[in-house]
């Protein structure tokens, strides 16, 4: 699995005003991997995700994507480097139809591959096909998450960033979404970087994982290692959902 490095986060420190949210974070994602980042509320997981996307930008340190330093690029230019994001809270366009939402994802190539890619998304999430002319805001939470991931995939990304895809969803739906991610990774070789609070599901899915506490990465290893690690078990898994 040790492909070449796709994303490298090096000594990144991010501030909100004067408050330091990330301190010296190092994370690496290789091509073809699923890497997850787990941690408690307020650990800085989402901040790292947003720092990769350039909003807020890292004050020190570097974010290197595919050999290029993207630390100081504006968000839309980072997105054009084919880093697709399914942001926290899904952020679909509520008054636009499912199809229009997907169309927005295909904007980077000016809809060149739109029809082809829509079919792919519909195969992956048949529910979206049923609801294609319905407005985004009227979908259920799980469907919105599917739409958010589908929209991200429409840009033919090299790296897919998922911020809490399980947030507020029923376990069965989470399972379905995680299976879809796994399948994408296996069949299309898509690289995925995932932020999750649902540590158990995330670790099971991932090739490698990082544990974040108070803005620092405190532990890393393969998904299996971390699942077996007593500290991780005590902090994130015991008494949690299995």
């Amino acid at each position: 699995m040790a492909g070449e490095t796709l994303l490298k986060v090096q000594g990144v420190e991010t501030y909100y005003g004067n408050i330091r949210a990330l301190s010296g974070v190092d994370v690496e994602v290789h091509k073809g991997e699923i890497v997850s980042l787990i941690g408690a509320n307020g650990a800085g997981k989402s901040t790292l995700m947003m720092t990769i996307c350039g909003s807020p930008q890292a004050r020190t340190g570097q974010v290197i994507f595919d050999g290029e330093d993207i630390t100081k690029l504006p968000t839309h230019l980072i997105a054009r480097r084919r880093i697709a994001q399914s942001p926290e809270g899904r952020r679909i366009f509520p008054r636009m139809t499912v199809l229009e939402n997907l169309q927005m994802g295909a904007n980077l190539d000016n809809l060149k591959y739109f029809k082809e890619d829509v079919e792919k998304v519909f195969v992956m999430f048949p529910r979206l096909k049923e609801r294609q002319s319905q407005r985004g805001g009227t979908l259920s939470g799980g469907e919105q998450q599917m739409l958010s991931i589908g929209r991200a995939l429409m840009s033919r990304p090299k790296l897919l960033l998922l911020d809490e895809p399980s947030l507020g969803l029923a376990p069965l739906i989470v399972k379905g979404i995680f299976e879809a991610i796994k399948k994408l990774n296996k069949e299309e070789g898509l690289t995925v970087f995932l932020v999750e609070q649902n540590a158990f599901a995330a670790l099971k899915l991932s090739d490698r994982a990082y544990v974040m506490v108070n803005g620092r990465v405190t532990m890393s290893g393969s998904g299996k290692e971390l699942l077996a690690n007593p500290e991780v078990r005590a902090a994130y898994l015991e008494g949690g959902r299995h």
Partner: protein
Amino acid sequence: MAYTTENNQSGVMTKAIKEGIFAGVIALGMFLLFVGIETYQDINNQLVWRTRWGLLGVFVAVAAIGRFVTVGFIKPHLDSRKLAKAKTGVLEISDEKGFFRTHFLKIALIFLLCYPFLAMLIFGRQGSLKYVDNFGIQILIYVMLAWGLNIVVGLAGLLDLGYVAFYAVGAYSYALLSAHFGFSFWLLLPMAGILAALWGIILGFPVLRLRGDYLAIVTLAFGEIIRLVLINWTDVTRGTFGISGIEKATFFGIWSFDVGAANNFNKAWGLPSSSVYYKMFLFYIILALCMLTAYVTIRLRRMPIGRAWEALREDEIACRSLGINTVTTKLTAFATGAMFGGFAGSFFAARQGFVSPESFVFLESAVILAIVVLGGMGSLTGIAIAAVVMVGGTELLREMEFLKHVFGPDFTPELYRMLLFGLAMVIVMLFKPRGFVGTREPTAFLKERKAVSGSFTKEGHG
């Protein structure tokens, strides 16, 4: 069963009477000082007051009876209709529309094309002047302004309370450039649009980071700044005196509408001298400009920039994460909207022959915005209907001479324009919270076109 309905009905009636009296009392309290007592100056220039109990009585009666009828008859009727619909299981939207509704746009366009001639046939040459100018041109100017603002507010979701500034820029561009350099209408029309678009970008830059209420305040201030500059920069704009004697539009430079000109249109065609032909010509110009606005809006919505505007309205952060440059997207929205405002402004100057800062007060911005909101943000048809109702309605008020017989000779219906405007807005918002046309035509299709009904969208309930 019969017993309960009867009981219900008498219950409804008691409730209606109660609410009617209550509404009457509130109206009495509200209007007692505003309507019941009037202050005026007598011959000695002293401020004295007199009472108008009759008028106050009318106000209170309207409120009380209106509330009684609403609660007692209209609401039960609507409820029973809704219930019946729910029972039959027929959704409120059906794909079958009548002939009139499917061909509404074509019929409307044909009607508009014939409108000046129809007016002339029915009311005679001089009689039609009012209908072509006060109704036709006036309404179409507002349609165009509202369609222009619709790009900024309805599509891109940027609340702009200073839209009239661009209208003013267009009008003064035409007035000043034609006076100083003698450029013709047809040269200055696009120039006014470009200048207004430039001002749109100038406004756009400082407000790039603002949204919602903050943006509204800054745009409001921008509108006022432009107006104050027009008032105070007297060397150029002649301040509150305004600029008069603005050149008329010509028939593409071939014929002039100036009475003294050698190539006078009326003479060239052997028509009797009357300003009605000029007005008809203006009517067709503004109609063409409106069509241009509509065409551009419809085309843009299907292009990447138009899609980006709509996405921007929905979620700015998601837009950026999809690679959309929100800076250029916002600026193009401001510039495009402002450009149409500029076109309308230069047309306005050519039509009036006179511009002054008084035509570009905040109230104008508010009226244009109200038309956009009432029509249903984003819907061209809805906005056009709203403009006809609102602007046409206020023009109609001028015609209501008979009201003087009811309310006394001092009654001037135009003064109640804003009251009725507000009332109409409240009523529309109560019954059609998304505006006249709340449905939005989607721009993405795989196979068939399907209008997405507003009934599927959330509006607090449902």
